[in-house]
């Protein structure tokens, strides 16, 4: 496929493109879904194709096809060039890439595609047998094994070839006590091979969560209302960082490129160097985390990946940038451009977004709370499209009194602004845990595999409902 992507780039240049890139991708995913113990279906999806993006006299065009023949490649290039002919007041520019040539892949000791579907189904069935019970009447378990191969070339000489296998697992359970229920959804995922499932600990995790939710249904204590302290888990910290630090920090969003669908941002040019939170808060996005679900070493514009500091010691430090968005900010791409398939243009995306751990143990954080709540997981969350007003409804939550956990509390709600969230954190634990997610953005929608995570963080004086 190197020949065909290079052919596309050269042809586009000959036809007048000032810049051209071509990206071949082949994806294969297999998996299975169990619903309440019944194997609903096994699934296989397989696809491949080429996408070409060009700049012609300051306009941008993108065309793609699942036909990767030379004849089709010519048509794709012709279409992209034709589409780029639009009148603009300001020409679109891209900051430079270094034209690197690299082959990279995620490590995979046991290839998932060598494991038969029967074994993958058995994995789910074993888990089902371990978690089913009369008090967990609804159980959805879905697993998928993905393989992505990519060949990317651009007119600056870049040639990046990569292979990334991923595993994603989603579970959805409902716990029942009489007529009352609680719902729990979560996701596990990593980049890498089948060996990653060896210690995934899902049986213990789901059973423990179900037991905790049942306790919550049976004997909930009253959560404190009004201003209180809340100890949030890595799961809550992760989703908050993703939603209120990563998303608003996307350069293209700040420039209004996603305004119609995914929204804009409370951040702007004048926010760099401004305070959003306490000194205890440092949030990074790092594609290079091995096994991270958002793992990559080069982005989909041929730029080498590195860790990005979105917030450092409470200060807005850096935005996520593509080659296009970085021009407006007078900077270079920090390798944040990803596309979720050959037929989609690269957009600014997060990869593995998390708060850096602090210096304390969990017990120290807990011990410093006279009256408050431990929020271990959430059931509902949302945030406004400027990423300012956020809400988390707790799922597994506990009352804290005088530094001790006293019992379960049911669905406490944290509804606050982004600044309040980050400003209220006075300390973080030494732990670091990650959770998987599929981040949605773009028109058409692109789902990007990501990690979110962090330590335990203690919030002082926030209001629970």
């Amino acid at each position, binding site marked *: 496929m190197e020949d065909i992507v290079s052919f596309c780039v050269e042809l586009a240049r000959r036809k007048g493109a000032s810049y051209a890139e071509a990206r071949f991708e082949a994806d294969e995913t*297999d998996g299975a879904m169990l*619903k*309440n113990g019944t*194997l*609903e*279906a*096994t*699934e*296989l*999806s*397989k*696809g*491949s194709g080429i996408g070409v993006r060009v700049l012609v006299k300051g306009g*941008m065009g*993108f*065309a*793609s*096809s*699942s*036909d990767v023949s030379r004849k089709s490649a010519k048509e794709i290039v012709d*279409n*992209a060039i034709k*589409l780029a002919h*639009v*009148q*603009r*007041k*300001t020409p*679109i520019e891209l900051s430079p890439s270094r034209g690197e040539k690299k082959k990279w892949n995620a490590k995979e000791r046991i290839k998932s595609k060598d494991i038969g*579907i*029967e074994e993958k*189904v058995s994995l789910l069935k074993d888990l089902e047998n371990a978690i089913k019970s009369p008090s967990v009447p609804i159980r*959805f378990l879905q697993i998928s094994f993905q393989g992505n191969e990519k060949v990317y070339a651009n007119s600056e000489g870049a040639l990046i070839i990569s292979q990334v296998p991923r595993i994603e697992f989603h579970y959805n359970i*409902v716990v029942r006590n009489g007529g009352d*229920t609680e*719902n729990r959804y979560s996701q596990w995922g990593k980049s890498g091979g089948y060996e990653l499932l060896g210690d995934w600990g899902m049986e213990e995790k789901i059973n423990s969560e179900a037991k905790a939710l049942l306790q919550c249904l049976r004997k909930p204590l009253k959560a404190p209302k009004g201003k209180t302290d809340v100890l949030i888990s890595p799961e809550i910290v992760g989703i908050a960082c993703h939603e209120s630090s990563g998303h608003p920090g996307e350069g293209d969003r700040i420039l*209004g*490129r996603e*305004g*119609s*669908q995914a*929204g804009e941002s409370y951040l702007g040019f004048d926010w760099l160097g401004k305070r959003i939170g306490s000194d205890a808060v440092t949030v990074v996005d790092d594609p290079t985390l091995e096994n991270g679900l958002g793992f990559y070493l080069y982005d989909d514009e041929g730029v080498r990946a590195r860790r990005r500091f979105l917030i450092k010691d409470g200060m807005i430090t850096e935005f996520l940038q593509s080659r296009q968005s970085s021009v407006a900010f007078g900077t270079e791409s920090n390798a944040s451009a990803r596309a979720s398939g050959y*037929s989609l243009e690269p957009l600014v995306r997060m990869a593995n977004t998390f708060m850096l751990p602090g210096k304390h143990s969990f017990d120290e954080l807990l011990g410093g709370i006279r009256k408050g709540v431990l929020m271990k997981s959430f*059931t*509902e969350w*949302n*945030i*406004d*499209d400027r990423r300012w*007003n*956020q*809400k988390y*409804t707790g799922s597994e939550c506990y009352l804290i009194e005088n530094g001790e956990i006293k019992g379960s509390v049911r669905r406490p*709600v944290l*509804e*606050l602004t982004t600044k309040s969230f980050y400003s209220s954190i006075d300390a973080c634990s030494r732990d670091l845990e990650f959770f998987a997610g599929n981040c*949605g953005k773009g*028109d058409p929608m692109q789902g990007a595999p990501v990690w979110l995570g962090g330590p335990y963080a203690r919030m002082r004086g926030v*209001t629970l*409902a």
Partner: protein
Amino acid sequence: MLDPEKIVKAAVKLGATDAVATVQESLTRQSKFVNNEIEVQKMWEEKEAELFVAVKGSIAIGMWDGGDLKGFVKRIVTMAKLSSPNEDFKGIAEGPFKYRKIKDSYDNKAESAPLVECANVSIESALAAGAERCTGAVYADYWKTSMATSNSVYAEDQGTGLNASIRAFCGKGSGHSVSISRNVKGFDPASAGEESGRTASISTNPSQGKAGTYDIVFSPLAIGNLLDNIGNALSAFSVESGYSCFTGRLGKRVASDKVSLSDSGNIAGGFGSRPFDEEGLPTKTTPIIEKGVLKTFLHSTSTGKKSNVRSTGNAGIISPRPWNIVVGNGKVSPDRLISGVKRGIYVTNVWYTRFANYVDGAFSTIPRDGLFEIRDGEIKNALQGLRLSDNILNVLQNVDGIANDAKQVKWWHEVLTPVTVGHVLCRSLKMTASR
């Protein structure tokens, strides 16, 4: 081999006891605009095949989009053979069937609609109505679908779609509108622009809203979001697994008697209309809620047999789904609805709807774009910073009026299934705010 009959034949030869193959060729074009300028133009040409296979009840589903199709079919059948039976699977529809063409669903002019012009017309209308800047996209879709099954079904269809989504900004205000149509005649990007620009221009200085219980008037786009979620909860797959707030409520009152809601797979010009469902059964219009009473769920042949009812033509063989959710026209004008509100809020759009519990229906969603106080029957100042935090069954049960301005809406992933509805008044819903 991109011929569904050949694919089915190959699957049966390999051992499939049921097989459904759907082949779709499509061409999609997009002009995306940002801050009043065309940002990028895109085109996708796709040839996809979807294969459903059962081998004595063991099911495998495949999606193919490039590469060795023969090898793919072999793998799917092998996967089905290697897995265990789905006891819930009761078979696929037995054909053949006759299909009626869906009126107003294909327009060859739509295939070549000038998207840049459409985008510019939308932008200009928004600016003329008071917007300062606009962002959005215009799409033209063409598709050709053919399907065959091992139960003597063969079906073909082609369709077109035009879709404009525009969000206009003015100061701190914004407005969002859409125009969707299967043909050029019904496509009106200028009106979408004008509506979004007008909303933006009157919402420029929003003040922080107060949490509380309000009567709420929803625009079609806003209520469309909630109805889309309701449509998903009406699938027999969700219901019989217990994962729906409608489980156990068949025959019972689930909404106010002002609410009648159907799914229509064959409505003329319906953006989701198609002559046949995913097992080749002709689609139809199915009343789901009639004057507040839940009459049926959405079924395929298999889910229907399990519940001793007939399919409603909504396969998804395993997971039925809605095609077009239709509430249709109410009796009064939107102004009349608003005039009946002493203390309330007018919501023009919502986004990021999420559920705390799909079983009991607790959810929240965030009003976006123009949000206005209603006082003594009149729209007053613009608001911001509120969240609708309530229960989806309350939304249905508290409907106190549906306007006569029904419009078809579909927006991104916020209103994924097309919904036809007018403005809706719901009494006493809870709004919360950041503390």
